[in-house]
């Protein structure tokens, strides 16, 4: 596998010799969380790639606001296979990031991600695994392992989850979260508008004999056709009923 020294950023710590599992975990414990997130994740990726048996390439996927990117990677093959998944919006690293699960792909036998498996095989990868990092915020991620040499066994995946947990801590500490005050304001406004929408749906359900989802679909269609906000259309429906008009 071709190896790239070009991660997202220059590693903050860059000893070239793989330190072994104990040494890797010791260094992880010393990594400073106040450094740029990309640097931290790049070092986690390098330590994991240098430690986990059978792993030839490794990357870290972050998904923020629905957009995925590789925040760190150790080989160009890893970056390429990540990028391919981002382009099509589907693949083990995205599913692992979203679910927090560990997904293992035996390239020769996989039937869940056939397009990914074909692309991996073309690049000499025989086995891949993505370990989700369940971070309860708007940024989620996965640690992705690619192996040209063979299997990624359960013991390797257990170790990978430990590396992923360090990366998750970094994510949790990063200043990437939305303003809670802004969200609180949104919620207050939400409570006001949803009341009138519920009333309008009730009117449409009664008048047209449709269910709640169909009532909402009719409001959505009317909103788009009139190029007006759905909540305003709903308010109009309610107002017309109050005035004794027949709602069409």
């Amino acid at each position, binding site marked *: 596998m071709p190896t790239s020294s070009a991660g997202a950023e220059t590693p903050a710590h860059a000893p070239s010799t793989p330190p072994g599992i104990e040494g890797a975990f010791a260094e992880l414990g010393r990594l400073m969380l106040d450094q740029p997130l990309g640097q931290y994740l790049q070092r986690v990726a390098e330590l994991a790639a240098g430690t986990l048996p059978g792993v030839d390439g490794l990357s870290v996927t972050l*998904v923020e*606001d*629905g*957009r*995925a990117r590789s925040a760190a990677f150790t080989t160009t093959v890893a970056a390429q296979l990540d990028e391919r998944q981002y382009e099509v*919006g*589907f693949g083990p690293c*995205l*599913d692992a*990031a*979203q679910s927090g699960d560990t997904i293992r792909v035996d390239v020769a036998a996989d039937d869940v991600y056939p397009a990914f498996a074909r692309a991996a095989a073309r690049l000499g990868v025989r086995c891949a695994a993505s370990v989700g990092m369940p971070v309860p915020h*708007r940024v*989620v991620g996965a640690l992705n392992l690619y192996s040209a040499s063979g299997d990624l066994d359960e013991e390797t995946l257990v170790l990978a989850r430990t590396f992923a947990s360090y990366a998750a801590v970094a994510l949790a500490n990063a200043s990437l979260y*939305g303003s809670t005050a*802004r*969200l609180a304001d*949104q*919620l207050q*406004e*939400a409570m006001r*508008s*949803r009341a009138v*929408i*519920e009333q309008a*749906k009730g009117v449409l359900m009664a008048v047209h004999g449709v269910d709640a*989802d169909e009532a*909402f*679909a009719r*409001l*959505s*269609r009317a*909103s*788009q056709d009139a*190029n*007006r*906000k*759905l*909540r305003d259309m709903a308010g109009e429906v309610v107002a017309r009923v109050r005035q004794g008009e027949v709602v069409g």
Partner: protein
Amino acid sequence: MVDARRSREALAEGLALSGLTVEELAGRCTALGDDVTPALLRRMVGTTAERGDHEHDVVAAALHERFLETGEPRRTPLSADLPAP
């Protein structure tokens, strides 16, 4: 059932155009009466997981409201406007 791939593409494009975060868009969905959680929304825009017509339409309606505020002329299609699977 709406085509998941086309739905994902439409919603992901809409989210990108909106300039909203997933949390903000989820909050707008809540304002329309349905509790589309950020986790569900991430799945809808980031994966081709199955979703119902109604789920798609709630997000599309929330994006439409945002576009009316920002002056964005494009519209996120409703489920009925997407080609069938």
